């Protein structure tokens, strides 16, 4: 990569701040949630000042995460409609994971994997919020029937599992696809990166910027 490589903006500063805010809260939630999910992770409660503090903080962090996530999701909503090109792209997935990227169909700002992540997170985080409120001690849980709470803990656990697993894939992909982290840390990607991974998007921004 030459130092004179042309850069395009992928994320604005507010977007990046928003993303990392979600990231931090999500990680805290994952750690505190896992701590209360399986004894193997209970040691993580130490990060939050012990078991009771973990129980106290988790739902509040959850609400903060929900709000910031939704703000972020709103910003990204328009890029996440699934298109026919996405489906062709998806058919090439076995090649893609093996880094055989020749002749891939040109796609928009996000590939279908990212879009799936987007919608998965929307669904799971809404579920987590609703089920989380139902099991929130001591404020809300006593107002629901015990069976309702039982259902809620189950939903919460499954939703969290899916969300965490998805985010792990997200993180792996970010590390795997070089240049991605830069997008979220510095806000820019190289034009080549944009053309390679998100050709259609590149064309759109190129057009938009008068090139």
């Amino acid at each position, binding site marked *: *990569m*030459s130092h004179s*490589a*042309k850069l395009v903006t992928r994320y604005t500063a507010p977007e990046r701040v928003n993303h990392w805010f979600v990231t931090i809260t999500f990680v805290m939630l994952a750690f505190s949630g*896992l*701590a*209360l*999910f*399986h*004894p*193997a*992770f*209970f040691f993580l*409660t130490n990060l939050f000042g*012990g*078991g*009771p503090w*973990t*129980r*106290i903080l988790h739902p509040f962090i959850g609400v903060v995460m929900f709000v910031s996530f939704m703000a972020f999701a709103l910003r990204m909503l328009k890029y996440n409609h699934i298109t026919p090109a996405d489906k062709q792209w998806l058919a090439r997935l076995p090649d893609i*994971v*093996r*880094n055989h*990227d020749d002749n891939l169909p040109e796609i928009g700002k996000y590939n279908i994997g990212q879009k799936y992540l987007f919608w998965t997170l929307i669904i799971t985080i809404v579920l987590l919020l609703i089920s989380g409120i139902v*099991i929130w*001690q*001591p404020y809300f*849980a*006593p107002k629901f029937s*015990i*069976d309702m*709470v*039982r*259902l809620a*803990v*189950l939903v919460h*656990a*499954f939703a969290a*599992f899916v969300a*965490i*697993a998805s985010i*792990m*894939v997200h*993180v*792996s*992909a970010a*590390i*795997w*696809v*070089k*240049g991605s982290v830069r997008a979220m840390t510095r806000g820019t990607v*190289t*034009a*080549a*990166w944009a*053309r*390679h*991974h998100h050709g259609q998007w590149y064309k759109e921004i190129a057009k938009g910027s008068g090139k």
Partner: protein
Amino acid sequence: MSMQSLDIQRRSATTTPSPDARQTLEVAKLIDVSKCIGCKACQSACMEWNDLRDEVGSNAGIYDNPRDLSDQSWTVMRFSEVEVQQGKLEWLIRKDGCMHCADPGCLKACPSPGAIVQYSNGIVDFHEENCIGCGYCITGCPFNVPRISQKDNKAYKCTLCSDRVAVGQEPACVKTCPTGAIVFGSKEDMIDHAQERIADLKERGYDNAGLYDPQGVGGTHVMYVLQHADQPELYHGLPKDPHISPMVGLWKGIAKPLMSFGLGLVALAGFFHYIKVGPKEVPEDEETES
């Protein structure tokens, strides 16, 4: 309340076995509803021994007071007026509280290591110093017993006076019961005693008298002699076939290890994928093209 010197046989949120070299006698409390006069001496003794004082409440048009279990009331009498036989009124009075299940749902649901323990004698006890106040025990309990304190957000329930039992005494409620409706001893003896009581009740015309020791939770260490064992619901909704909710069973059963394992797998898959195929980089030619 962790004042015991009893051997622990099971511990919440703990995946390895507890010390179980020593085996103590399995105990049980037997509550003979047919002998109970609802005097609430057991409630009083419970408050006295455990230093609990509930609020002075109000009357809601029933005899039950305090109206429900709470962090301050670990046992309450439940009064039910029923007519099982047409024209024959019965006032069934059941002492409600922790059943000390052999397979305790509370312990299964609890995420905090050692907040709930089961002693080798069968008593299920809460160690509030380890309680984080999440309320999962409530979801685990098929009898709706644990209560979270408004004051300290810890869960409380009957300890079966584990502190007394540990030093060879009977629980306070047993000690105080004036009619002998509550007795305490080895589970085996209690079952034998119950059989005598059931024979007596059958002779008095209660054909369906029986022992309530529900197997759905592995049996309990608090058992009832019921005049109508075929209809435990008559006794203020005592569940007929209690078991840990399947939702809790799924959540704390297979889901817990499986999902933890699943997350590990995802992490490993990501890592080894990277190791195998390496980073995805934009080809150099494309880079220079721009």
